[in-house]
């Protein structure tokens, strides 16, 4: 079974190559081939996952059949553990969803879109499953290049060009940081295999080289994940990328950056950096909190709905980074649960917005207020359910993840982060609820009162990617949105999910078992997974955050100007501060790279101090 695993990468590539020859197949046939390939991928990865779940140790396969000799890896390994394979499955599912949405979405068919998405999908699978540092970089770059091209898909519009440019410039600099990290580790260990590097570093102290290598790798992956202050490109890119691509970008690509940080830490750096975990935790929790709150604050003022969802993505990436940044098994489990539920919900919300664009050709919340009535009723239910799901209502959506996260945070004495993610969740969910209330329920003061509102950015005319007769929403879009949102909501109800995640995280964080499986084919006993009890605190918090999110959204939409209730001395500086923050997102790659450099320098110094 695992011998076939490289085909997860190879098969979509082959189909993409066939597409690129661009024989004039019919549009429908292109779509069918793409959907068939993507669904085969889902089935294959699911089969791999089932296989992996039944085994005690990571399943390892060597591409080219190069088994390691005396603990020296000659080739490239792929390693499947429940966590990495689940993430690959999420990616495969979203690739499938993207094709389903694109089916009736694009006016101009293009096998180029199909080829790019297939290559992108193969690269994501390779990225999740690779066990080799340089191979990880290759798939990172492949994902990036395919994503730049997809962002610029509507290249006759100015928005897509600008978004793709800032995206490409920022991520290329990030990739160079990753290469610096790889070069450092190769200089020290003479190895590229994650397990082999980890073994080498395990019993040696963390000196400048090791800390620097970790810092540079983390910086590169944080650019991809869009952690503040490396995040600026994301809002520009996700706001303009074609919606089917956004489904993948927002649903899973950003999360892969977070995953990669956990992957490199737990396979390579846990040995040397373990003594400094207390300090490292502070650095990562700080960054995660900053990202969670920054993204949530930015959500509040956005009326471009895709840009709003882009900032929701940033905020939730921050919360996931908090999970990973706890550097415990429970933290990893929490991050995995959050990524799964929130990723599905975000993807579903993007599909709804895609349907809205398809129907009325606008993403401006204020303009849509009057047009919303034309939208089909099921979309209303799906969008509002998804928005509520972002607040993690009891037992639904990311509730399971939040539950584990609270435990994990309190366990290491960092209970304060619970407040951070409560605030982030409330604000971002409120912003999406506000948009939903305005678009689908027609709430809020009519925008005619506020003519400036209509000058808010909207779609380029070039981005109105409408196909078919107006006044019609293809059922396949509604169904895809419904399935994604429903899956995101009920995933928390799956029996045994929390225990399964904890178990998967226990295997993911067991460096010795991983190294033994990769380098020596040895079997080690399964580590003991921690367990988490359902506490009253979690349910109370969950109820509070849903109520608060609805209350905030209702207050904003209230026809009475609720804002005036806040004293002017508080309101005006707050608004000014908000605009200062917002204007930092200037759309200029020069600014973004300058902030990237500031972030990298600060992060490097913080890690150096933390591991002193």
């Amino acid at each position, binding site marked *: 079974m695992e011998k076939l695993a490289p085909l997860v*990468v190879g098969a979509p590539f082959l189909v993409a190559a066939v597409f690129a020859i661009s024989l004039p197949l019919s549009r429908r046939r292109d779509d069918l081939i793409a959907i068939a390939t993507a669904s085969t991928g889902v089935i294959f990865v699911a089969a791999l996952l089932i296989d992996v779940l039944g085994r005690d140790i990571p399943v390892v396969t060597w591409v080219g059949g190069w088994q390691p000799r005396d603990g020296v890896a000659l080739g490239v390994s792929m390693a499947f553990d429940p966590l990495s394979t689940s993430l690959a499955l999420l990616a495969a599912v979203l690739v499938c969803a993207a094709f389903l949405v694109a089916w009736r979405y694009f006016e101009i068919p293009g096998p180029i879109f199909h080829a790019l998405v297939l290559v992108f999908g193969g690269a994501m699978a390779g990225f999740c499953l690779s066990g080799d540092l340089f191979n990880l970089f290759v798939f990172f770059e492949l994902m990036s290049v395919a994503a730049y091209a997809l962002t610029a898909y509507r290249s006759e519009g100015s928005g897509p060009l600008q978004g793709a440019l800032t995206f490409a410039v920022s991520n290329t600099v990030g990739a160079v940081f990753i290469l610096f990290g790889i070069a450092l580790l190769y200089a*020290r260990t003479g190895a590229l295999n994650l397990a082999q590097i980890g073994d080498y570093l395990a019993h040696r102290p963390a000196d400048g080289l090791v800390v620097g290598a970790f810092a540079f790798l983390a910086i590169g992956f944080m650019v991809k994940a869009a952690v503040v202050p490396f995040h600026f490109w994301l809002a520009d890119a996700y706001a303009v990328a074609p919606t089917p691509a956004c489904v993948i970008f927002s649903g899973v690509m950003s999360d892969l950056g977070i995953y990669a940080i956990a992957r490199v830490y737990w396979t390579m750096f846990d040995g040397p950096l373990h003594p400094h975990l207390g300090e490292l935790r502070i650095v990562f929790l700080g960054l995660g909190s900053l990202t969670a709150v920054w993204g949530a604050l930015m959500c509040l003022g956005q009326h471009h709905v895709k840009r709003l969802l882009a900032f929701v993505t940033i905020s939730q990436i921050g919360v996931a980074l908090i999970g990973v940044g706890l550097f415990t098994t429970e933290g990893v489990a929490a991050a995995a649960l959050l990524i799964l539920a929130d990723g599905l919900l975000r993807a579903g919300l993007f599909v709804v917005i895609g349907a809205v664009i398809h129907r009325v050709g606008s993403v401006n919340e204020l303009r849509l207020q009057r047009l919303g009535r034309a939208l089909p009723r099921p979309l209303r239910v799906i969008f509002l359910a998804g928005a509520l799901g972002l607040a993690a209502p009891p037992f639904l959506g990311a509730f399971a993840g939040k539950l584990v996260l609270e435990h994990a945070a309190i366990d290491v004495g960092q209970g304060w982060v619970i407040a951070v993610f409560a605030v982030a969740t409330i604000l971002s969910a409120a912003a999406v609820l506000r948009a939903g209330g305005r678009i689908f329920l027609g709430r809020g003061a009519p925008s005619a009162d506020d003519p400036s509102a209509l000058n808010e950015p909207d779609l380029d005319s070039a981005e109105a990617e409408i196909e078919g007769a107006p006044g019609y929403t293809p059922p396949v879009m509604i169904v895809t949105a419904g399935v994604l949102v429903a899956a995101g909501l009920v995933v928390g109800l799956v029996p045994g999910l929390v225990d399964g995640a904890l178990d998967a995280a226990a295997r993911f964080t067991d460096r010795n078992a991983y190294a033994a499986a990769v380098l020596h084919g040895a079997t080690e006993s399964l580590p003991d997974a921690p367990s988490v009890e359902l506490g009253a605190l979690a349910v109370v918090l969950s109820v509070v955050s849903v109520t608060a999110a609805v209350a905030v959204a209702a207050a904003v939409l209230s026809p009475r100007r609720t804002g005036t209730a806040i004293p002017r001395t508080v309101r005006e500086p707050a608004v000014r501060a908000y605009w200062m923050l917002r204007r930092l997102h200037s759309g200029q790659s020069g600014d973004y790279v300058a902030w990237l450099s500031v972030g990298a320098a600060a992060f490097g110094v913080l890690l150096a101090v933390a591991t002193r």
Partner: protein
Amino acid sequence: MSAGESAHTPRRPGEISFATRRTLFLVSALVLAGVMVWALGGVPSFGDYHGVYGLVLNHVAVPERHATNVITAVNFDYRGFDTLGEEFILFAAVLGLALILREGRDEEEGPPDDDASGRRVVGASNAVRLITVLLIGPTVVLAGYVIVHGPITPGGGFQGGVIAATALLFVYLGGEYLTLRRVRPLPAVEITKAAGAGAFVLIGAGGLIFGTAFLANFLPLGTAGDVFSAGTMQPLSVAVGLEVTGGFVLILSEFLDQTLVVRRRGGAR
């Protein structure tokens, strides 16, 4: 106007100014340089490297793979999976590039046809043209040589592919756009590129069927130093050569067509 002299964009309140941006960068770059020197301080002195991976490969590649060029053995055999990814990076980049540039061109006036004004791109003298035409043959031969000798001497699919693509460049320099259209019928180039990319995956899958694993060797290894040696390395190198040739020809010609379209417009004005 040269780029350095253009006026600065006026900033809105809250936006950082150009000077602030530069200061921010310079200060952080100084700190970053410190972090980098600190990290690289742990690297072995230049010339003193003893990494185990390279040492092992230098010893085993010739006897095991019958490839005298260990670098090619690494690229096409030991770490062939990287090269698969790399090939598709080029593949995706060329797809994206074609997408971006063609969109604009179609909208303007459709694909360029062979009208007379498109014929001379640069005013090349007959002597230049003669030289470049004479150079085409040797370049193509050289490219082929570099590709198939990858497992033996410096070179391989990448370098040979780029050299082959620059043969097109000579045609361009000769100003023979009509010749160019014949040398480079786009569909054929696209098929070359995609076939090269696809062949890599297929040869890899061949390893799965006839050998032990994806991308494992399943061909006779031959005698080290022969052109037909080193097993699947040779066809993989040729596949990459095809893909790279096709990819770079497409890149060059997409930009070239863009230029031609504009020049024609310029002439019409």
